């Protein structure tokens, strides 16, 4: 049941530790004791079929679920990117990014965060004027501007078209290389998990059923034979026939 962590191997202090996380909706148990540790700078993908409780787990870790039991501690700051952009329609892009932001040089930080996602020019736009991909990039900027130690991503590119999703995955890899944040990526897309994660957790039957380090070359492509082998293995574990 307990997941071993790669973090201790690196000797790094974990950025997130969760222990015995349980959650039930009425009689239906969704999470039956999940243990999870994420090391500093580590990207962990949480894979699972729909209804496997992966989004529920992320909401608990983000502190958005008051009715779960167990412990979950974030050592540092966390920011969340949801599947929908969740920008406030009545605030312009820059105001959305700076929502609840405190500290010195707010405008400068907002400008830099928007520039990093390639939307420096759209700071005065209303969210309704943006395309789906642009709005999601603003949501990423809203998370980044807080300089989080841990980024919680709940199927962040799930609602985007295939091309935009590829661009967003590349963007996320670049941002991660620059900022070195740790991340928990909830997804049902095996390729996305393999492209972005250092370690993959499989959520099945209310607990973490398998853990898989992703030992691929730094420039990952789906054309790599090792990538294909891992992909087949994961799909197999998820119960999807690959032949």
């Amino acid at each position, binding site marked *: 049941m307990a997941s071993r962590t790669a973090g201790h191997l690196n000797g790094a202090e974990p950025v997130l530790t969760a222990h015995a996380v349980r959650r039930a909706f009425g009689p239906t148990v969704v999470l039956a004791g999940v243990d999870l540790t994420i090391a500093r700078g580590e990207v962990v993908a949480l894979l699972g079929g729909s209804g496997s409780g992966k989004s529920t787990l992320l909401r608990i870790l983000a502190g*958005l679920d008051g009715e779960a039991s167990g412990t979950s501690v974030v050592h540092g700051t966390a920011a969340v990117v*949801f599947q929908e952009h*969740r920008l*406030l*329609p009545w605030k312009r892009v820059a105001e959305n990014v700076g929502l*609840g*932001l405190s500290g010195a040089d707010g405008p400068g930080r907002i400008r830099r965060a928007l520039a990093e996602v390639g939307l420096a020019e759209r700071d005065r736009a209303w*969210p*309704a004027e943006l395309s789906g991909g642009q709005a999601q990039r603003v949501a990423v900027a809203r998370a980044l501007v*807080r300089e989080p130690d841990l980024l919680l991503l709940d199927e962040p590119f799930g609602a985007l078209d295939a091309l935009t999703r590829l661009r967003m995955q590349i963007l996320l890899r670049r941002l991660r290389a620059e900022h070195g944040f740790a991340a928990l990526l909830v997804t049902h897309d095996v390729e996305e998990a393999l492209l972005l994660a250092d370690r993959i957790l499989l959520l099945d039957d209310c607990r973490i059923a398998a853990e898989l380090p992703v030992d691929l070359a730094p420039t990952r492509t789906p054309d790599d034979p090792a990538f294909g082998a891992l992909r087949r293995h994961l799909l197999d574990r998820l119960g999807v026939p690959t032949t």
Partner: protein
Amino acid sequence: MSRTTLVEAPDEVTAVVPVVPRRQRPARRWRRVVSPVVLVLGWELAARTGLLAAEKLPAPSDVLATGARLSRDGTLGIHLLDSLTRAGAGLLIGGLLALVLGTVAGLLRLGDDLVDPPVQMARMLPHLGLVPLLIIWVGIGESLKISLVALGAFFPIYFNTYAGIRDIDERLVEAARTCGLGQAARLRHVVLPGALPSLFLGLRLAIGAAWLSLVVGEQVNAQTGIGFLMMEAREFSQTDVVVLGLLVYALLGLISDSALRVLERRMLTWRRGLRAT
């Protein structure tokens, strides 16, 4: 008055849809002017030729002349000011009460359980039917008129405040929480702006209800006001003054509604962005 707002609301909705009708709009706008103008001209003609007896319905030009005369000697101004004061005071009292109770019921579960049931019950009472009871309670003076207006304004503002708060997307509140916004900041940045479109709708309906309540209230023992002017004119068979009073009521409704729409457009610019896409 409330009829005009109800009829006009769908117009805004259709304005969202395609660009195509826009090209026809100038021609259509002129076409829509034709029938009112013909009606007024027909009325004038019928009155001038004696087809309409002057004591039943005077010519529109006579009504306008009466209006000019009464505003020159100051009579119209005095009565108008009194009517406006009553409407303003009633709106303020009823509106503030509705805003507070609607917010409490919309935000707090306890408030919802305690406040909403009695309000829902009271809503079923036609508030203009309460005049006899109100006369017993507060007498036939100013307080009767103001109470009536306050009652009329209360319900639309209460219900729209309540609905506006309830309709806010829970996911946006959640996102604001992950951005570190506390309770007060969430109210300010998410709940208030999210409920604002509903609040405006409530205010517009409330102003309509306020004028309607005023018309009824000013017919009970008023010594001043547009309603009093009309009742007095009826006793002396001055039909032109009666029609003038109606015209003033209509104009008051029209002006307040348009002013509110301008304000709405200013404050809800983000919704225009929504429409543009």
